[in-house]
């Protein structure tokens, strides 16, 4: 289990003057499910990459269990990227085995069945639809049983029922293993449905403008009264929130 403390003074890409992130502070406790909601260009993906150690951060900006990371994060990470990012020269099973070399065939088949891809282990990614490729990338992240799970708008191009099924699956797996989850989305309903806490980011340069606990019993359905009320109340209190404005 791992907790995160993020305190980013400012993030500027090399050869650029624009700040992507500016004074961004928040913490995620062990096993917590946090959703980050913000307009596009708010630096959400940059933030995830900094947490994952793919993007450079200064000492102290990203703390794992209260200690700075050296080169790479000190725990097992599962990352579901915006694009599936499968190796096209490897089959589905080989793609999974790349991140988990010692996994058995039955384990692979079980994981694939859970994401609705049974019998596809020998397929190459070009033979799969975009939605199926995305599910493989989800299976890849789940298979490693990560301590920290990072998701970058993972359900964005899926059709409604499939997205819902995968959201349920994500919750199921989270409740089984309780990894710490940072979930980036621009869909407020999705954030409310899944997360313990929703953080709203401002437009670029990104910082946290609102940190809100979602105190609704699970399972949450967007048709439910409690869900609707919570959302309506929050939006009335903070108009312009989804445009990245806290007023």
């Amino acid at each position: 289990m791992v907790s995160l403390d993020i305190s980013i003074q400012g993030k500027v890409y090399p050869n650029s003057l624009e700040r992507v992130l500016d004074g961004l502070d928040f913490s995620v406790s062990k096993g917590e499910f946090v959703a980050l909601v913000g307009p596009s260009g708010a630096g959400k993906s940059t933030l995830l990459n900094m947490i994952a150690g793919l993007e450079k951060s200064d000492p102290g900006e990203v703390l794992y269990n209260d200690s700075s990371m050296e080169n790479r994060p000190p725990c097992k990470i599962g990352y579901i990227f915006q694009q599936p990012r499968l190796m096209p020269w490897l089959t589905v099973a080989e793609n999974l085995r790349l991140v988990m070399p010692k996994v058995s065939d039955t384990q692979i088949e079980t994981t694939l069945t859970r994401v609705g891809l049974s019998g596809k282990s020998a397929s190459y990614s070009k033979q799969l639809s975009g939605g199926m490729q995305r599910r493989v990338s989800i299976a890849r992240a789940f298979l490693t049983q990560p301590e920290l799970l990072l998701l970058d708008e993972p359900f964005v191009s899926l059709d409604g029922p499939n997205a819902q099924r995968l959201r349920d699956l994500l919750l199921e797996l989270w409740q089984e293993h309780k990894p710490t989850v940072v979930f980036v989305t621009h869909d407020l309903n999705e954030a409310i449905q899944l997360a313990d806490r929703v953080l709203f980011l401002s437009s670029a340069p990104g910082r946290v403008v609102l940190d809100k606990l979602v105190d609704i019993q699970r399972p949450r359905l967007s048709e439910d009264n409690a869900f609707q009320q919570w959302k309506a109340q929050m939006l009335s209190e903070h108009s312009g929130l989804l445009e990245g404005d806290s007023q």
Partner: protein
Amino acid sequence: MFVHRLKGMLFGALPLLVLFLFWQSAAMLLESNNFPSVIQVFTSLHLHLFDGDMLHHLLVTMMRVTVSFVIAMLLGVLIGVMMGAFARLNSAFDSLLVIALNIPALVTIILCYVWFGLVEASAIAAVAINKIPTVVVMVREGARVVDRDLLDVARVFQVSRFRYFFKVYLPQLYPFIMASARSGLSLIWKIVLVVELLGRSEGVGFQLGTFFQFFDIASILAYTLAFVAIILVIEGVIMRPLDRYIARGGYGQS
């Protein structure tokens, strides 16, 4: 299915047949010793193959081609990957690479023979040195366009260095390595013949030089045919299956 394949083969052989027919009739019209007919060439091929020592010379040349090919590919890929991956290394060695690309093969061969003596090693070195720069250039292009997003996947999931290199990095270079191997094979065997002509006492190049002195054009063409046939077999038995392996899953095809 069988008929279809047979048709395909016939269609592929047709241009060759037309060429042979044209050649034969031209030779019969000209009746010159310097322009032997197809039949004369094949008779000579048969003679060299079964009564002469053609097989021996072919083998010797093939060995030289193989060894220098392997050396050139290994070093070329290594240097190409390094130059593609490290910008500083690339700018430091770029001008050297341009020079190496433009030194005539003949100059390298002569220098190798003069400096290292008329021995097998200098022959092999001369061929390899000629080929390495072109491999470097192609592989470097591949290393420059490697997909960082896929490398990031391997980094996040903490894939071991070995698997990172062989399962994630290198497969992205395979199409480029394959292209340089293809062009390499045809270039190398031509250079090997020059090397043999200039300073070796066996091999196809040496034989061609001897036949040239006697104006034995039929034998020259017979040796050429034999060697081209070998290259075609290599193309069919090694290169094509490799191509199919690399393109598995539709990778490298648009």
